[in-house]
């Protein structure tokens, strides 16, 4: 058992460290074309589609944030598609329809991907984007993102997603996670290895849909599948780390759990659908790095957490047994360097933690302008490792048993 668990840990540590070093090396590599947002200007016609389902409280705010974009009004179009809401979403959208080039459509509840496709099909713009109705955009974001389309073979551009006004403990954890995600997306963008074009404000060349097809149901993760498909057709997805989008994140564990089970399930199912890309050099870094390491990280999370639980429960049982037999005794803490744990596993774990902290601080420096340890980072480091395996386990189980995950 001990040999088995230490071998597994060594393998997990090797892959974990390899991945982190790969990310850091890529981050510090010189970019061929950096800061495109400032260097180039590109102002095509743009249609932003806002698919909604029971978003009466947030749809107006979302659309208003689009109207505040620093972009020529005659080139910006907004299409709100109400996906058969049972609340007053449609009416709320109509109220603000006269404020700009806003079109409000309504369809029978058919799913987000159908709503998006409807908006794309009706659009006559060169660029189409989508914006979930629970998100808002910073005024300069669109202008910053568009120049990335001038790069060869780029057909989609993703923004930098931030958490809107994090309040609860879980939202603060997500705030740290999203900030780290901005750095990781930037790195993945450099590697042409982005595997998701998120609902909040990803932009696409409209022509690409005609060529590779429109959004699909894709296990309720159409934003992941379209990214897989783009990569499959050897087009590129760029990332604009300066273009901020603010999204409302789940405030409670139940909602977060539901969302993450859907994401992870969607990823696993899409990964199975696109399994031919794994370890296939033809598809670049997404085939050799992103997809294999995403799967490895899920497996590693299980192994590490089960190993930790095994050791922790053994310790608890031993402590209870000791106190049952001898009663509670207090031992003064005494420091002796001899007993400092210097096993290779401890040293490697420490190295990996240092590398993780470097990535977190680099993310903070990039997103917040200063590398510092905040409350959100502390919450993230202390708790994320305990909660994430819960949805990873559920999503993996659902994938194995082919039990579909609902959107809501």
């Amino acid at each position, binding site marked *: 058992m001990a040999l088995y668990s230490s071998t597994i840990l060594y393998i997990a540590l090797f892959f974990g460290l390899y991945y982190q*070093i790969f990310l850091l090396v*890529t981050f510090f590599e010189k970019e061929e074309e950096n800061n495109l947002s400032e260097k180039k200007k590109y102002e095509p016609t743009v249609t932003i589609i806002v698919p909604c389902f029971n978003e009466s409280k947030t749809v107006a705010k979302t659309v208003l944030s689009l109207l505040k974009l620093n972009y020529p009004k005659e080139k910006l179009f907004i299409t709100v598609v109400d996906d058969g809401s049972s609340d007053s979403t449609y009416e709320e959208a109509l109220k603000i329809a006269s404020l700009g080039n806003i079109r409000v459509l309504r369809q029978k509840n058919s799913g987000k991907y159908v709503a998006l496709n409807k908006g794309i099909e009706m659009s006559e713009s060169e660029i189409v984007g989508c914006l979930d109705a629970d998100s808002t955009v910073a005024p300069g974001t669109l202008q910053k993102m568009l120049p990335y389309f001038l790069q060869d073979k780029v057909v989609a551009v993703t923004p930098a997603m931030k958490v809107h006004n994090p309040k609860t403990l879980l939202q603060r954890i997500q705030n740290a996670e999203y900030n780290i995600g901005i750095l990781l997306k930037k790195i993945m963008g450099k590697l*042409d290895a982005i595997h998701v074009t998120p609902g909040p404000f990803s932009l696409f060349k409209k022509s690409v849909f005609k060529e590779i097809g429109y959004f699909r149901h894709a296990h309720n993760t159409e934003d992941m599948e379209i990214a897989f498909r783009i990569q499959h057709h050897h087009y590129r997805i760029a990332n604009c780390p300066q273009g901020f989008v603010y999204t409302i994140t789940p405030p409670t564990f139940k909602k977060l759990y539901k969302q993450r089970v859907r994401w992870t399930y969607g990823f696993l199912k899409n990964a199975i659908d696109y399994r031919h890309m794994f370890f296939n050099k033809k598809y*670049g870094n997404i085939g050799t790095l992103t997809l294999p390491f995403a799967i490895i990280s899920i497996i590693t999370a299980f192994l590490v957490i089960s190993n930790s639980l095994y050791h922790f429960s053994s310790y608890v049982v031993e402590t209870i047994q000791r106190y049952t037999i*001898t*009663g509670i005794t207090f031992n003064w803490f005494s420091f002796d360097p001899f007993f400092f744990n*210097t096993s290779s596993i401890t*040293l490697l774990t420490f190295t990996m933690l240092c590398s993780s902290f470097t990535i977190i601080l680099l993310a903070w420096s990039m997103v917040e302008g200063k590398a510092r340890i905040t409350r959100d980072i502390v919450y993230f480091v202390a708790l994320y490792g305990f909660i994430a395996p819960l949805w990873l386990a559920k999503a993996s189980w659902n994938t194995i048993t082919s039990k579909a995950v609902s959107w809501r």
Partner: protein
Amino acid sequence: MISKKKYIIVFLITAGIFAVAFIVSNYINDKRYEVIKTTADKISIDILSLETQFELFQESSCASLANPVLSDEINALADRLSYAENQRGINDDDVITLKKYYSLLEIKDYLVMKKVDKRCDVNPISILYFYTNDEGCEDCAKQGYVLTKLRSDHPLLRIYSFDYDLDLNAIKTLITINKIPKDSLPALVIEGKTYTKFQSVEDIRKIIPALAATSSATSTQATTTPRK
């Protein structure tokens, strides 16, 4: 576009970090082994010195004999050895050698103390404890907790612990003399009498009533407890 060179460079960096971690860990472990060995050597000299001192002063008064109680270093040695056993594994050759050395020191100390007791009537309270690291002996761990507790409550209590499975003739002789079968572990030998199976703190206090009087003593002497 895949940069094969980068994949290889990152692999080499990762492998390099692993190599450094292994080298540093091994280096520190070797240093630990040296520390334990040095401590054991010092204790060995202490015992030899005590024995020699005892022979030299055999004809004179017991008062002229230096403090027969060994330093706390044997306790520290036991803890360090136990830690090394935990880190490097019970089958590590260096650990086994050190355990044999330590067991011999314990037996030597036990014999010297018996001689001192006979001549000077110091009446040391000692327990010989036999355990095994085999999975089957669940009570061995429990017995270890009990003896650790007694050692901290009664500093004058001398606990000599022996790994039943250690391939050392001196231990085998002790086992034969005290007639201890393996299936009766854990076993304690107190004042020449063998007690098999688990003995609680209360059981041992009943066997050794003098323990109550020793808890206020200042001198310390005890040995290791087994680790599973």
